[in-house]
């Protein structure tokens, strides 16, 4: 094709084009206007939100979730506030990624968590505050920077409560109480400020002695356990020895009872035997006596190997016996 500059110029100056464009532009303008009008008229509020509507800067109404209409453009403005959502603020630690194994951000939060106790010791308190926006109008219009305000109040209140307790109380028995009281104090200040916030819970997450002091606290726990152990051992010894002794005592008493029984029985036997013999003896005194004597002699004399029968006039019997070698081994 041949190059023709004239043609180019002509086509650029197409005479009917402006007329065509004018009609289209009108429609486009109307469409754009309509879109703007509609998009600034309709708005939706999610299920966990409410919408707070201002007309020319002044609060007019609060609407619940759903699709709503408002005056277009900037005449009415909507602030959406998540009233059902429970917000959480963390003190002394920070969650980086919550999950089954929550990841905590590393760093030093001791400025936030280190506090003085009433006995002028120090404790590291980590806690969370959960809250809801209970009054969206107050929340939006009464206080600037509500979350920061909440954090400030939380720190001041927690320190106020902890400052009235000993370190031992804070670390052990008083934990629940500290959290509850902190919640009360916080809520009161938040209400005074008209923040429109309702605290759901204050939870002490972790309460520790400061790191340099920790080992000595553990030492106390160990000592406590050692104390328990020593006492338990002593008791178990006690419980082993005492019943054994009681058994032994029982045995000794039963033995004595046996002895007593035997003693009485024997004595009665002996007595009856004597009486029987004596009865016979009293019938023939002399002869019985002789008989008994001779019987005994007959019985015992054969048992004795060395028998000396001497005349009463015999002197110096003892040397005689020694010559025999008996009884004198040397």
């Amino acid at each position, binding site marked *: 094709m041949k190059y023709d500059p004239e043609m180019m110029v002509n086509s650029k100056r197409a005479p009917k084009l402006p007329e065509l464009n004018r009609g289209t532009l009108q429609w486009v303008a109307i469409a754009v206007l309509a879109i703007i009008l509609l998009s600034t008229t309709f708005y939706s509020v999610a299920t966990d939100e409410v919408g707070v509507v*201002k007309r020319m800067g002044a609060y007019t109404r609060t609407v619940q979730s759903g699709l709503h209409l408002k005056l277009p453009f900037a005449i009415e403005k909507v602030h959406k506030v998540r009233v059902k959502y429970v917000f959480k603020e963390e003190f002394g630690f920070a969650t980086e990624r919550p999950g089954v194994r929550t990841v905590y951000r590393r760093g030093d939060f001791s400025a936030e968590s280190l506090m003085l106790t009433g006995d002028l010791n120090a404790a590291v308190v980590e806690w969370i505050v959960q809250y809801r926006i209970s009054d969206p109008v107050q929340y939006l219009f009464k206080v600037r920077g509500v979350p920061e305000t909440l954090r400030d109040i939380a720190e001041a209140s927690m320190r106020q409560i902890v400052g009235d307790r*000993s370190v031992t109380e804070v670390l052990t028995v008083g934990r629940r109480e500290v959290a509850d009281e902190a919640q009360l104090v916080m809520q009161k200040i938040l209400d005074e400020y008209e923040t429109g916030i309702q605290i759901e819970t204050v939870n002490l997450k972790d309460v520790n002695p400061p790191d340099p002091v920790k080992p000595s606290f553990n030492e*106390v726990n160990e000592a406590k356990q050692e104390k328990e152990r020593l006492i338990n051992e002593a008791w178990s010894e006690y419980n082993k020895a005492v019943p054994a*002794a009681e058994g032994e005592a029982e045995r000794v008493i039963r033995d004595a009872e046996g002895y007593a029984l035997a003693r009485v029985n024997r004595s009665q036997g002996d007595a009856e035997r004597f009486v029987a013999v004596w009865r016979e003896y009293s019938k023939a005194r002399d002869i019985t006596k002789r008989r008994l004597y001779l019987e005994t002699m007959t019985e015992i004399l054969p048992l004795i190997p060395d028998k000396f029968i001497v005349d009463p006039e015999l002197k110096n019997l003892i040397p005689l016996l020694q010559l025999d070698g008996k009884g004198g081994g040397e």
Partner: protein
Amino acid sequence: MNTTRLVVIAVALFLGLIVLSNSLYVVDMTQQVVITQFGKPIGSAVADPGLKIKVPFVQKVNAFDKRILEWDGSPRQVPTRDKRYIWVDTFARWRIVDPLKFMQSVTDENGAHARLDDVIDAITRDLLTSHDLIEVVRNTDRTMEIFELDVPREATAEIMVGRLGITREVLERAQEQMPRYGIELIDVQIKRVNYVEEVRQKVYERMISERQRIAERYRSEGQGQSAEIRGQKEKELQRITSEAYRVAEELKGNADADAAAIYAAAFGRDPEFYSFLRTLESYKTTLDSESTIILTTDSDYFRLLKDMK
């Protein structure tokens, strides 16, 4: 001709819009407004929200926040009356109540912050240096549960003012100076109180030695109680065995007595015969194969050997 008219209308409309937009203004819920004319305030401040009218171009809108505003003091090292160096971090909440005065005296929030810094910090410092540390830390006279041995004496001291008392006084004194700035102080709170580093180390050392003493006490309590239990055990054992001994001996004694009575009753019939019989009986046991017997021919048994009478 048509086009010119259109242009004129457009320009007029445009100008009208500018004038209109300049004579209308919106006061938000969170705002209060002072209208100035060449820098000079006109009328009183406008605090109710809505659409308002002013003279265009000449009058200027100066908006100020109506809400409660923050003030956060920077941490400061302060000595208390009992010469302890602590870091104190305060915060306050305030509000612009007289925007006109506010604008004239401090211009804007930054100006206000500077004044608040001066006033609150100075008053806080004054009050802290005239109170003991314990008054800053504690709030009430609540009796604490302390089983520690070596609590600093002031921990049990009477609380005269307390933390809230001090902050209340800071608030009151600071508030006195606020009206001239058009500011109302709503609250002053001590956010943090902490020992300075050197003191902190000392406190830690004290805590450690305190804990060690507590641990020591637990240990010696354990030893003491276990010794006590052992002693009790010994005592119990002694009691049990001795009681058993007493009962046994009593039983045996009674039996012996009974036996003696029985014997006496029986043998009392003929004591001589008893001793005869018993002597004979005892020969059987006292004389055996180890014995040597020397009998004279005088004895009853061998008399016959010598002399048959």
